[in-house]
């Protein structure tokens, strides 16, 4: 562990919350990397909006994880004082931005899952999670719509945009299996009526993806080998660099108020 890292008592419920929070933070951070460098001003605004939505979701979820864990950890402890092996996010969201097509495809594949996920979570027995879900669901609806519009533009636009979008889909597709993964702990949280079984979202997710890709004149990639490991802290090499950058001040000047 990096110096100053916190130890989290990862009960199934705390893990469940951290997994969702880490997805949102890492993806929000990735979107924030675009700031000042987007292809057009309207898209600067949209990418920042989506990034802000996700960072907001992460903060709410970390706050709740802190309350559930009851060990005095706040949102910044979770975000800044865990190293990559402590992070529980999907491999999909930590993948690098690449070109605009890759960022949009990554966002779309995630949002097409997160939208029905949060909608279903509005019925969670945990009132705080249900409230977080109600807000997140509205936000993710916008993400799906915005990304879907772009995928259609890029798929239909020029030969170059089409080629780039196909490459992004091909490269990112193997990370989508992890969206539906559950472990023992998750099953307990689902059985308690706090979480929901992601398997129930497979059909709606595929329907959204297939519908948008068809409109874009693109094919759904063939099923094949799926990557995983993010949920237990076995990440790609990209996450460590992201965290080194994000955590720099908290690590170099520990314990300060900012």
């Amino acid at each position, binding site marked *: 562990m990096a110096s100053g890292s916190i130890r989290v008592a990862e009960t199934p419920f705390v893990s469940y919350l951290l997994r969702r929070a880490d997805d949102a*933070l890492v993806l929000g*951070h990735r979107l*924030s*990397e675009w*700031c*000042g*460098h*987007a*292809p*057009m*001003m*309207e*898209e*600067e*605004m949209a990418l*920042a*909006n989506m*990034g*802000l939505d996700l*960072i*907001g979701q*992460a*903060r709410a979820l*970390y706050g709740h994880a802190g309350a559930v864990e009851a060990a005095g950890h706040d*949102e*910044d402890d979770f*975000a*800044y004082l865990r190293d990559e092996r402590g992070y529980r996010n999907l491999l999909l969201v930590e993948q690098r931005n690449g*070109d*605009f097509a890759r960022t949009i495809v990554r966002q779309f594949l995630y949002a097409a899952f997160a939208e029905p996920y949060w909608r279903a979570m509005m019925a969670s027995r945990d009132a705080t999670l249900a409230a977080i879900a109600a807000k997140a669901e509205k936000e993710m609806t916008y993400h799906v719509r915005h990304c879907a519009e772009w995928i*259609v*533009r*890029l798929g*239909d*636009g*020029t030969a*170059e*945009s089409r080629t*780039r979008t196909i490459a992004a889909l091909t490269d990112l597709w193997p990370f989508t299996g992890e969206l539906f993964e559950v472990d023992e702990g998750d099953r307990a949280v689902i059985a308690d009526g706090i979480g929901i079984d992601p398997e129930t979202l497979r059909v709606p997710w595929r329907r959204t993806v297939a519908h948008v890709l068809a409109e874009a004149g693109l094919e759904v990639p063939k099923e094949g080998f799926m990557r995983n490991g993010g949920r237990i802290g076995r990440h790609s090499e990209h996450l460590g660099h992201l965290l080194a*950058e*994000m955590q*720099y*001040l*908290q690590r170099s*000047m520990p314990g*300060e*108020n*900012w």
Partner: protein
Amino acid sequence: MYTQALNAGPEAAERTIEDAAILARFQERIDAEERIEPNDFMPAAYRKTLIRQISQHAHSEIVGMLPEGNWITRAPSLRRKAALLAKVQDECGHGLYLYAAAETLGVSREELIDQLLSGKAKYSSIFNYPTLSWADIGAIGWLVDGAAIMNQIPLCRCSYGPYARAMIRVCKEESFHQRQGYEIMLALVRGSEAQREMAQDALNRWWWPCLMMFGPPDADSRHSEASTRWKIKRFSNDELRQKFVDATVPQARYLGLTIPDPDLRFNEETGHWDYGAIDWEEFRQVIAGNGPCNADRMAARRKAHEDGAWVREAACAHAAKSRVRAAA
């Protein structure tokens, strides 16, 4: 703000012959504090001055995203990260309103952006300085947004309606940015010795460039006479600079920080803070392209523009295809 009257336009030579009576009528409208709207008559030089000023302002908002954007991924807390991302997004929004205001004068956003990327158009000198520590984000909000407010509040009464209205919207957000920046500084000075040192260092580096934001001293300021007559500019560069110093000195004292000017003293007679000599040679060098970050800023803007070209082309191609399909 962010318009420092940097381009000397050869207006006099290009001035078209306009009927004296129409010009007099235009000036009467200005003197009566009427707003000039896009379809109203306006002298060519008035239009040209506004296009230059509004586009410089728009470019400054966009280039200004870069120094602060430099810290979004390294902000020290999630609250600060979200606030900074939202702030930089606001600046982009300001750029959008301002390009839209410029477009009402008959110039396109694309033309203006080309002028920025070719180096023909200028943007505020302040954004050619680097953000070297987190405290710079506090200092920019406090001082740079603070200076922007000083300049922009009078622009809310600018004679050109679309610019004035854009400024009203922008000023509300700038004052929020300024408070946010000051609050970052406050957290630092209330923190550890290392944090206080970081805050003082930021003030040391940003103070003089911020004073330069108001543009050359009145004695050397081009464009001022006509802009004043047209009620585009209501205060001189030096007047605005003085207002800024007067407002900022007490704020620095409250923070317990020292303004890096040994000549700074309160003048009992004038009721203003007298400040030391500004290094105008540094200003000229930054404007000439030799500031610490000019090359980096332009390279970043050009790269974003070039990297995004295929995306913009794809959007246009799709729109064109959709129109054809809809017509079929």
